[in-house]
């Protein structure tokens, strides 16, 4: 069992239940396996040796029928419980993931491979079924059945029992010895297959580019050549990798043959009854079967574990939010020492923190992501004066977006503090602070629902009139007039596709509707064409009136309206007169 196996089974409630259930079913199956063999042997010897009639054997025959029915039911129960267990474990992981992403660590995940994570989360359950309904039952059976078989066989026929008992450790040693090497080879085979598949996907995705350069025909031959080359290499490793399976098969088969011969010779010598001999022989394949099946199921289960591992790796990320006000998740317990505030400060009655009337101050703020060394912000200082537009400029990677995330309280500083008036933001519940804040990111996300629902994202109880007013303030009037269903047009996944400019305007509408005191704009026009950018710029000017605004921008036109411009470099605010810097750049 790997580390992920153990974590899945131990750390999820559903996983623990599943392990217990599977173990119970496994023990029952082991008992039934022995009973079936004993009954079958009894029937055969009864007829063949003692010449008993069908009528006299009807008792054992009925018992055999019952045992067979129970065994079939147990097989079905393994499948049912395994599948349900997989669903339960996945549900639990999904729930924890959502809580982690939304509450403990809501950092913007631009640029990360979110699609791959989503695929693991949604489709992972299918491959996890292979683990819970396939591999885990076999693993339990591989432990329980041989034990039950040996307990039954040794008193019946110590010699055959000894042979079987000896063959199991040999089998396992071989499995481990050869399995270790084979695993490395199997891994290289999967890598080759993945590489081939990746290459094909790469070529297919780039078909248009290939055609633009007249290379599409040549590439067809390349696909074939690369495929052939990898096949030759892969078959080379497979010839060796499959040897482990061959040895296992040989062990099991020769074990059976050896036991049959041993029993035959003992019977011939009159040292054994046919009943005992037949029972032992019938139990032989039952003993080796689960052992061999574990190996076969191992690969099928690997995918499911990979999906679970992907989710666990996200759950393992330390929370980016800390401080007393976060919900009592485990990560808040190990609050870094630098964040610890004097008890007197904590217990003090809280002042209202209103960014529209009190300045928001970044005081020597440093920040680094939990799993990384380098400081994104390094002693950063900034004062956002109430009612003013402060523009933050600087090269990409200078830490501008981190400042935005701190202002939104999506993350907390690793050192230093951010205050609004006299209040340290960490004293507030994140939701309490965010209620006064609006954010327009580089690419606003639309959620499945109507335009109205999207605008009302931050104010779900807003009335229709207010939504309409916010929409027209944000410059959505023209779009709404074009749409037959107006505000009720579905957008987002499965709905109408909106352009990047329209999406930004919906984000602006959210800000207008929320009537936020602090507005954070993170390069709101970076992905827009000149015309949309101008329209969005106009709406931003209207939005900024009477609010405190933090504007992160490249665009000289946007920055021109700022009351103050601060330039950032390597996580610090630099003293150079930024207005001149902008003028020089333009």
């Amino acid at each position, binding site marked *: 069992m790997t580390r992920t196996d153990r974590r899945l089974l131990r750390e999820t409630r559903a996983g623990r239940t599943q392990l217990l259930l599977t173990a119970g079913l496994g023990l029952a199956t082991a008992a039934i396996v022995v009973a079936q063999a004993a009954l*079958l042997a009894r029937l055969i010897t009864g*007829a*063949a040796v003692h010449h008993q009639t*069908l009528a006299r*054997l009807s008792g054992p*025959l009925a018992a055999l029928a019952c045992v*067979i029915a129970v065994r*079939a039911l147990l097989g079905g129960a393994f*499948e049912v419980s395994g599948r349900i267990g997989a669903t339960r474990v996945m549900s639990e992981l*999904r*729930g924890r993931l*959502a*809580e982690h992403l939304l*509450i403990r660590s*809501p950092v913007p*995940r631009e640029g990360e491979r*979110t*699609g791959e994570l989503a695929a693991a*989360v949604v489709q992972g359950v299918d491959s996890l079924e292979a683990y819970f309904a396939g591999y885990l039952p076999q693993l339990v059976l591989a432990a329980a059945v041989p034990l039950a078989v040996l307990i039954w066989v040794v008193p019946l026929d110590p010699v055959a029992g000894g042979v079987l008992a000896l063959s199991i450790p040999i089998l396992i040693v071989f499995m481990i010895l050869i399995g270790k090497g084979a695993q490395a080879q199997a891994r290289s085979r999967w890598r080759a297959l993945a590489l*081939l598949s990746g290459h*094909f996907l*790469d*070529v*297919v*995705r780039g078909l248009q580019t290939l*055609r*633009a*350069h007249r290379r*599409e025909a040549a*590439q*067809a031959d390349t696909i074939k050549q690369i*495929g052939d080359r990898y*096949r030759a290499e892969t*078959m080379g490793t497979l010839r060796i990798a*499959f040897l482990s*399976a061959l040895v296992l098969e*040989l062990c099991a*088969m*020769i074990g059976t043959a050896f036991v*049959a011969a041993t*029993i*035959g010779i003992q*019977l*011939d010598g009159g040292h054994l009854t*046919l009943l005992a*001999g037949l029972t032992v022989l019938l139990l032989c394949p039952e003993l080796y079967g689960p052992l061999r099946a574990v190996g076969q199921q191992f690969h099928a289960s690997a995918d499911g574990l990979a999906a679970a591992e992907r989710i666990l790796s996200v759950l393992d990320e330390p929370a980016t939010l800390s401080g007393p006000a976060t919900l009592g998740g485990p990560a808040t317990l190990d609050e870094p020492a630098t964040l610890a505030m004097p008890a007197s400060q904590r217990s003090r009655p809280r002042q209202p923190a209103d960014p529209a009337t009190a300045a928001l101050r970044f005081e020597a703020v440093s920040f680094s992501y939990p799993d990384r060394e380098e400081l994104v912000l390094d002693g950063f200082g900034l004062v956002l004066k109430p009612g003013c537009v402060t523009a933050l400029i600087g090269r990409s990677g200078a830490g501008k977006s981190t400042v935005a995330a701190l202002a*939104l309280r999506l993350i907390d500083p690793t050192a230093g503090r951010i205050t609004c008036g006299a209040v340290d933001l960490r004293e507030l519940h994140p*939701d309490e602070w965010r209620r006064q804040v609006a*954010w327009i990111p580089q*690419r606003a*996300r*639309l959620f499945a629902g109507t335009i109205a629902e999207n605008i009302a*994202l*931050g104010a779900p109880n807003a009335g229709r009139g207010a939504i309409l007013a916010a929409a027209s303030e944000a410059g959505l009037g023209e779009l709404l007039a074009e749409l037959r269903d107006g505000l009720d047009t579905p957008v987002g*996944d*499965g709905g109408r596709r909106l352009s990047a400019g329209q*999406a930004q305007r919906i984000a602006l509408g*959210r800000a207008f509707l929320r009537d936020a005191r602090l507005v954070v704009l993170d390069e709101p026009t970076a992905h827009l064409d*000149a015309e949309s950018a101008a329209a969005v710029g106009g709406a931003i000017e209207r939005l900024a009136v009477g609010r405190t605004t933090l504007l992160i921008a490249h665009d000289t036109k946007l920055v021109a309206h700022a009351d103050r411009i601060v330039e950032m470099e390597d996580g610090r605010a630099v003293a150079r007169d930024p207005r001149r810097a902008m003028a020089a750049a*333009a």
Partner: protein
Amino acid sequence: MRSGTSSGMTSGDLAPSAGPAAWRSLLRAAHAGRAESRRLLLSVLLGWGAVLAGGGLLIASGYLISRAAQRPEILALSVVIVLVRGLAIARAVSRYGERLASHDAALRLLGRLRATFYRRLAPLVPGDLGGPRSGDLLSRFVGDVDVLQDLYLRALAPPVVAALTIAATTIAAWLLLPAAVPALIACMLVAAVAVPALAASLAASSGRRQAHARAALTTEIVETIDGAAELAVAGRGDERVARLHAADGDLASLARRDALAAGTATTLGSLCAGLAVITVLLAGIPAVDSGALAGVLLAALAFLALAAFEGVSPLPAAARRLRACAEAAYRLDALVDREPTVRDPAVALQLPCAGDLVLEDVHLRYGPDQPWVLDGIDLRLAPGRRIALLGPSGSGKSTIAHLLVRFRDPDAGRVSIGGAGVAELAQDDVRRAVVLAEQDAHLFNTSIRENIMLARRDASEQDLWRALEAAGIAHWARALPDGLETLVGEDGGLVSGGQRQRIALARALLADARFLVLDEPTAHLDEVTAQQVIHDILTRTGDRGVLVITHSDIALDQYDEVLELRAGRITRR
């Protein structure tokens, strides 16, 4: 607005019903296997051999100990003992051989399938696929081709092995006790036909039932992952967790029902095997009593019934696999089974060695009842001339670029090079004369050098660096530890957006074309760099005709002509 991943996954779940069309598609796909028929046959025979040897081992052992119980001469047993050992070794060796043969055949088949479907797909890109979702389509295309590799070995071979096993079992049972045959065969047929059919149809209907709940859950999850920060700022975090939980619950309750159905199928399968043993005993015990069956053979008969089901047990999985293959083949056919709208003429004209690239009164729309995207476009690009084409996004600028390299044909009007209509030229000749650097040009997962040399395999080192200079990345490339051998990663993921753009630009500049069409060459660059790049392009492309498509108004004074596309028409600025 990154809904690409989510929509791709939801639609992937909505499998078409495996109707007659799907089976026809499957038959067509199966043709790829004919070339490997000898290898396939070998793996089927070896698989059958393994089942026979396994069964034979059990039966012979059963006979061996029954006979031994009569305490004959030890010599009489030794033949059977040797047979038992031989069968044991034969079983292991043939299983090994089958594994090797089947993997070899599967890999060969996959190569063939990929090449075949690639050849059918290539002429359809991009004109006949089009649309913003084509990225998802192509990913699914690759996935579906991968699914088909299982067709022979995991979907079609098991039924063949099962049929052969049933035949062998029938013969063996007939030889032992003809009276046992009908019930035994009946049990096997139920296990081989009815149970797999039930399993496959249960899997399909559960897939259909779950599709909706899965799609809902997928939307919730993708939105949660992509939009976590926005939801948190909006104060909707707790609500989202609750919504996700509810969507999860919906799916889980459907999954429970389907699990129960699948468990029923599994139970039925093993009941069949058990029932076979019982029926054999019901026939065998009276036969021993009446003397029709020798007592020593009763064990052999019971073991036969036990062993025969080894060949039948993979069938439910095979039936599910067959269904999946049919659905994949159907989706593939739906994608690639059409005539490309852009085709080479039967007799191609010679590419004129001089002249202008011209659009005359070109009209184009995306569908018969759609508005005109291009409504009478005239454009003339002479060698050595520099033209900028401006226009808001969505105005059809990239469509003009596609017309110029004949990725699509206009609904009316004419595109010509040196007087020869592009439809009368070979497509390769058109793209030899006009090279397009697309807005989202693909970077292949290889080195920078390979990516650029794609445009001209025989380019000299000097040509290569000249193109890099003009694209404004020579300095950057020189500073890289591995220089031009640096790998760009999957989909260019290891280089920044700006560098990616400029690698594609260098690729277009390296191509030996008379006309260059550059679609948004400065999209990801800051203003200063963008101006420098435009300057370099315009001054270093010599006597080539250059059309730069852009939505920004950077360095417009450096062009010979600035055109603007608006409402389907071109105006001069």
